[in-house]
């Protein structure tokens, strides 16, 4: 019997000829990511555990993003602790102002096809976009990896998702993953791997695949993998022949197969306050919104800004519209492509790259009774202000179009 994509990665990593779901194995970790919120806790636990050196400083990446820019005096403490930890243990991959961790991990080449990567953030599933097995863990477990380079995992079952055909022009990867989460429900992929294939996926950019793998955690998934192709190789700077083993075998065992025809998909939103509360935008048309947020590790990439700029070109926003690019690199590219000028002229508020509003610490917090249409990954109660804020999640196209009217609107 063949292997699924996740099984192949685990087999290659462990040297086991065949692994099966439910089996508990110890893997060698290729890279880890720690962000600013959790570095103080990781540092504490690491020393409390009695470790005196990192298993491999080159494999550790420290990224400041949730607290950049600082919005409170205590925020700075995280940087000081992170800097001291980096200095003490010889950690050189430190990004203090470059953007969101999940964007940087693949953008800067830390997470490559076939790697096993863990991060202290649930959206670590993102790196599956390049065929990397990546998953979020807590800081205690991160501390133990920093000392040992190892982690135990239970081999997950795999759900295969096949999307064939061509997506309608106003349907994006965001609509695809929201629909999928709606169908799976918020716990439908718990402890499982997702493997996404089909001609619609083949046609997607790596950035779009990233949107999908990023949000897989919202269905509970341990990871969400795409088979690397030429686009992946160009993005990750690897050779196709080195990664051509990264696919699920025809005769592999999948616990579930879900099949979609791309032409039948429509723009959707997740309605307050669960990510699996999915409704077609057509059912929500006219819902008044106070704010639009375009950004985050889900949808703050160049193609997202390009789409928003195209829609907002020559228009003026009718509600406050906050744009937060996912990384410094993306910001600069968007400036060069003229997107920032278009967005600024349309009245958008363009902020420094970072987690921004998505992590609810600054960047456009709302108050009781307000509604926001956002392109990020979570609409949990209280995520962007009080528990009486209504958060709708949608694509950059839906968000930008809705910004023009101050109401939820179907994108052209």
């Amino acid at each position, binding site marked *: 019997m063949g292997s699924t994509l996740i099984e192949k990665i685990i087999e290659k990593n462990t040297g086991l000829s065949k692994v099966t779901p439910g089996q508990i194995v110890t893997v060698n970790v290729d890279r880890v990511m720690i962000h600013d919120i959790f570095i103080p806790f990781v540092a504490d636990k690491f020393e409390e555990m009695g470790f005196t050196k990192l298993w491999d400083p080159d494999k550790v990446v420290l990224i400041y993003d949730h607290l950049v820019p600082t919005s409170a005096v205590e925020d700075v403490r995280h940087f000081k602790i992170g800097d001291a930890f980096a200095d003490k243990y010889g950690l050189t991959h430190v990004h203090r102002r470059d953007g969101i961790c999940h964007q940087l991990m693949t953008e800067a080449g830390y997470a490559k096809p076939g790697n096993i990567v863990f991060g202290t*953030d649930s959206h670590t599933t993102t790196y599956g976009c390049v065929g990397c097995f990546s998953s979020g*863990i807590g800081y*205690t477990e991160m501390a133990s990896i920093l000392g040992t380079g190892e982690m135990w995992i239970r081999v997950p079952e795999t759900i295969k998702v096949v999307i064939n055909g061509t997506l309608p022009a106003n349907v994006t990867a965001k609509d695809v993953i929201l629909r999928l989460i709606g169908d799976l429900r918020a716990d439908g992929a718990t402890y499982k791997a997702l493997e996404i294939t089909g001609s619609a996926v083949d046609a997607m950019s790596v950035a779009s695949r990233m949107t999908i793998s990023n949000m897989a955690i919202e269905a509970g998934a341990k990871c969400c993998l795409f088979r690397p192709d030429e686009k992946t190789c160009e993005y990750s700077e690897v050779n196709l022949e080195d990664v051509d083993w990264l696919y699920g075998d025809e005769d592999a065992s999948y616990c579930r197969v879900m099949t979609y025809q791309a032409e039948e998909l429509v723009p959707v939103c997740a309605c307050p306050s669960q990510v699996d509360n999915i409704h077609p935008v057509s059912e929500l048309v006219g819902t008044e919104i106070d704010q639009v947020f375009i950004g985050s590790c889900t949808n703050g990439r160049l193609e997202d800004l390009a789409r928003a700029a195209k829609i907002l070109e020559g228009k003026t926003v009718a509600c406050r519209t906050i744009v937060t690019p996912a990384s410094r690199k993306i910001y600069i590219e968007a400036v060069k492509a003229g997107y920032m000028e278009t967005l600024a002229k349309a009245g958008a508020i363009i902020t420094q790259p970072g987690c921004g509003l998505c992590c*609810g610490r600054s960047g456009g917090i709302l108050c009781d009774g307000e509604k926001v249409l956002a392109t990020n990954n979570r609409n*949990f109660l209280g995520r962007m202000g009080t528990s009486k804020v209504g958060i709708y999640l949608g694509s950059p196209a839906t968000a930008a179009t809705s910004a023009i009217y101050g109401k939820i609107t179907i994108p052209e």
Partner: protein
Amino acid sequence: MEQFTGKVWVLGDDIDTDIIIPTEYLALPTVEDMKQYGFSPLRPELASQIQEGDIIVAGKNFGCGSSREQAPEIIKALKVKCVIAKSYARIFFRNSINNGLLLIENSDIQDVIKEGDSLTVNMGESLEFDGKTYPIHPLPDNLMDIINAGGLVKAMQKRNGII
């Protein structure tokens, strides 16, 4: 076999990590500083009402969302004895084990129990309520090893020969 009894707080499905501890409070210096905000988006008064030894009973997908380990830590800091839910999100599950917070899976007790009821747990065997028992499953060995060591920190301390 260990047995304990506690007063029950009932929560629903999909209790996410932002409900357990909102991001706003994550940069507070310690879990002790944070614990008063536990569950605040859903029930602002709950953290002050929970007493040592109480039990949380919830629906499916408890702890979904972020990897923030403060979520299980806060529940532990509130001195909740255990959480009983229909299912758990995976990062939360791992974090709980690593911090020695006991999680029990059961999908029947939710239908019969109300907030304020008293529930008895027979470790690794069953829940007892209103004269009836509800079976529960023991955890796999590798997880029991971590719990028996007193959490992952202790397990690593043992490995590194400092305890």
